């Protein structure tokens, strides 16, 4: 039975030649992280800044939708157990009246620990070249947190290893969409995309 979505995919064989990149990406993911205490420090200092973003009462004026700042410059998930949530908005602006409306700071996904555990498992399958299983587990993670760039890095890498370049590219773009500027995962996604472009030409 033919796969349903494969019209989207240009099947190019020769996945093996990308192996060094994938291994490198993997190594980056596991090794090239900031030391834990540095990450904690970074997160704490950002938390200290958060009150400044909280909504402030203003007299009159039009509604303001403020974009969310990238909260965690580090690419991977922040250390589990740290308080990451922004202070909650206490005063609810009356609906319909010209009030300040500031977007809430993006909360860290409540599923982060579950997602991290699934990603570990999926990278394990990936390393053993069980790519379909890696993808299946990554999709499980994706259903728990559809905004995790690491999930898309895994999907993109797995599809790339399967020779499904077009899908790999789409997932890499999707991951870029969620990865903060300067983050490790963003760099990894970019590297993956850079590898794709010459091949497609």
């Amino acid at each position, binding site marked *: *039975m033919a796969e*349903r*979505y494969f019209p*989207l995919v240009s099947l190019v064989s020769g996945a093996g030649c990308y192996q060094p990149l994938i291994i490198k990406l993997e190594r980056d993911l596991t090794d090239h992280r900031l030391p834990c205490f540095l990450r904690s420090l970074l997160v704490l200092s950002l938390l200290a*800044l958060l009150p*400044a*973003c909280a909504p*402030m*009462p*203003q*007299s*009159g*004026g*039009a*509604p*303001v*939708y*403020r*974009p*969310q*700042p*990238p909260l965690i410059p580090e690419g991977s998930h922040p250390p589990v157990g740290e308080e990451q949530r922004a202070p*909650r908005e206490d005063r*609810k*602006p*009356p*609906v*319909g009246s010209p009030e300040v409306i500031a*977007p*809430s700071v*993006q909360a860290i*996904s*409540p*599923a*982060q*620990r*579950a997602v*991290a*555990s*699934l990603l570990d498992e999926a990278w394990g*399958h990936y390393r053993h070249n069980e790519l*379909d*299983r890696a*993808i*299946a*587990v990554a999709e*499980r993670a*994706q*259903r*728990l947190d*559809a*905004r995790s760039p690491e999930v898309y890095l895994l999907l993109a890498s797995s599809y790339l290893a399967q020779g499904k370049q077009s*899908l790999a590219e*789409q*997932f890499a*773009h*999707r991951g870029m*969409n*969620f990865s903060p*500027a300067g983050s490790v995962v963003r760099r990894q996604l970019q590297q993956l995309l850079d590898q794709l472009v010459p091949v497609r030409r």
Partner: protein
Amino acid sequence: MAKKKQRRRSRKPTRKTSGFTRRLVKVILGLSVVAGIVLVAALDVTVRAKFSGAKWSLPSHVYSRALELYEGLALSQAQLLWEIEQLGYRRVATLNSPGQYRVNGGQVEILSRTFRFWDGEQPSQRIRLLFDRNGISRVENSQGRTLPLLRLEPLLIGGIYPEHQEDREPVRLEALPPYLVESLIAVEDREFYQHRGISLRGIGRAMLGNIRSGQITQGGSTITQQLVKNFFLSDERTLLRKGIEAIMAILLEVHYGKAEILEAYINEIYLGQSGKRGIHGFGMASRHYFRQPIGELDLHQVALLTAMAKGASYYDPRRHPQRTLQRRNLVIDLLESQQLVDGVTAKQARAQPLDISPHPGTRTNPFPAFLDLVKRELREDYNEADLRSEGLRIFTSFDPQAQKKLQDAVDRGIPALEQQKSIHKGDLQMAAVVVRVGTGQVVAVAGSRQSGFPGFNRALDAYRQVGSTIKPAVFLTALQQPGNYNLATLIDDGPVNVAAGDGTRWQPRNFDRRDHGTVPLYAALGQSYNQATARLGMAVGIPQVAKTIRGLGHQRPLPEVPALSLGAVTMSPFEVATLYHTIASDGFYSHLAGIESVYTANDTPLKRYPYEVEARFSPATIHLLQYALQVVMREGTGRAAYNVLSASTVLAGKTGTSNDQRDSWFAGFGGNYLAVVWIGRDDNGEMPLTGSSGALRLWSQIMANLGVTSLAYAQPEGVVYRWTDPATGLLTEELCENARYLPFISGSAPEHYAPCGQRKEKGVADWLKDIFRW
């Protein structure tokens, strides 16, 4: 000549006749033997043909998503208990086998079942769940160690049945619980392991019993004969049929072992009815009466099913509980008298109530609208005959909790709307589709106001005018030209009067019948101004608007006329959900789907339906559109949502009302869910409802029930924010009157400043904000 013959015959009549008769008898005997051999051979072929191949046409069964339990999941204890009750977990004081749970104050302990998922088998585990007011606060194993997550098995939500509507879940002998085989043999055929298909002793005993009682009460059929009767023959009670049954029973025993015959019997037997659907076999009966897999059944449950084997209609535990309980206890007595169970165990089992689930554990089609979606997807890959006979196991994204919340909102919301608007009771119909944002997975569908009603599926098949629901496509087309349009671009909302192309004039009017002068683009969408949108649509080009609609995921032809901008096009709620999912997913299109994977009957993975994405629009442009869709919710036609939902929840959406108020639409999303709601009348009649006063209300309640989270409105690359003066579309300063903080595609923001009107006082907070502005 004739006379001669007569003479000859009359001369030696006796010898001639006896020779002829002998020959005739011989011929008849010979023919009978041949016929007998032919008959036996034919029966033999029949027996082997059916018994050696696939014995049954197996229905395909459809399952929900597997509930993932993890710390931080917004799932209350009550919601968890509801789900595990649906799964047939039994509440006990002490956990000792899979499929049980206990509640201890704020904690729930579960002994989960083993289940084979696509990515591997998950063994049975003993877990403890702790809750706080947000949901699950901790998941730990029996040693108190934190578990990152645990999956419960999915819920059976329906099936695709063979033409004869027989539902069954075949089980192997080794998977049966203790006492089942023993009790069946004790009750139905004590000499099963001794006889060769028929039992003369059994027949003798039955005859004796019948003579004593004066009527036919006992059959004397062996298990093999019963199987033959059910499998190959009709129900009529004639001697010929009995004879054929006996021959076939013997043939079956010649070719097949006792174990195989017994297994076939256990899976063949009729054990009840659920509407048109027949419950066959002990596996399905266990699901139907106890909501449990057969392997989990205790003695009293096993005895109940065995009792029903005698006659499932007569001994129906739901319709005739007393009679059935008596027979169940009779079965336990028999087991005790044959020393298959000891006295204490038997006594305990007899003391048990019937113990069946309050509602049938299997329903034929409890979620018809979702199942319909699944069937349509399946038909692209499988033919109908295979779906009805191959016993496929289909795993879907269906979320029973979400469906319940959706249906709760509908059950209350539609009658309330009818009452408020003085609409005749029962006139309104509705449809809704709920999608998990960013996954393309449909989690709940309502095809009608009546839950469980398997009629016209409006979610997929009601093609209705979408009205303003289409407008985001017009604005997206404009915003894709950052050189020409940004959110602050002023557009004329004056009267529109153009040739429609068919000789008539097209003169769309605003809903409030007023002109609003020049309005900024974001406000034109926020307030759903028809005149401004129509003008914008023509300015960017109707073919371009159509291209955008197709880019958002629409696949059917579109009428490329000016009225397209105002939604003069029919779509199903499912199609509208597809378009909005692309907007909710930052411009990435995904095919909306309900199926995750398909397995064969023996648990071999057959096909997966992977999640795929395709970038269709730049996330930066979609960010601008999402801004305008938030304006709809905060200040525009969608603001009534906040009567129900918390004002701190960031939402994006759009109302839609078709001409003469025949259709009321709302499509919108938060961070986790997207929902599209349509309300209308089946006869396409007018209603006193707009998108805002009808569908939006129901949408808001659905979203509140679902626990919608805030839209993750993160600033993508290539977007800058500037304080803007809405009246001129020029830059301004934060403290100038009416200043608005608007997103622009980098390089497209206005460069000039408008004169500042009345300046606001700047507080300490504002100074701080200046310092820390991102």
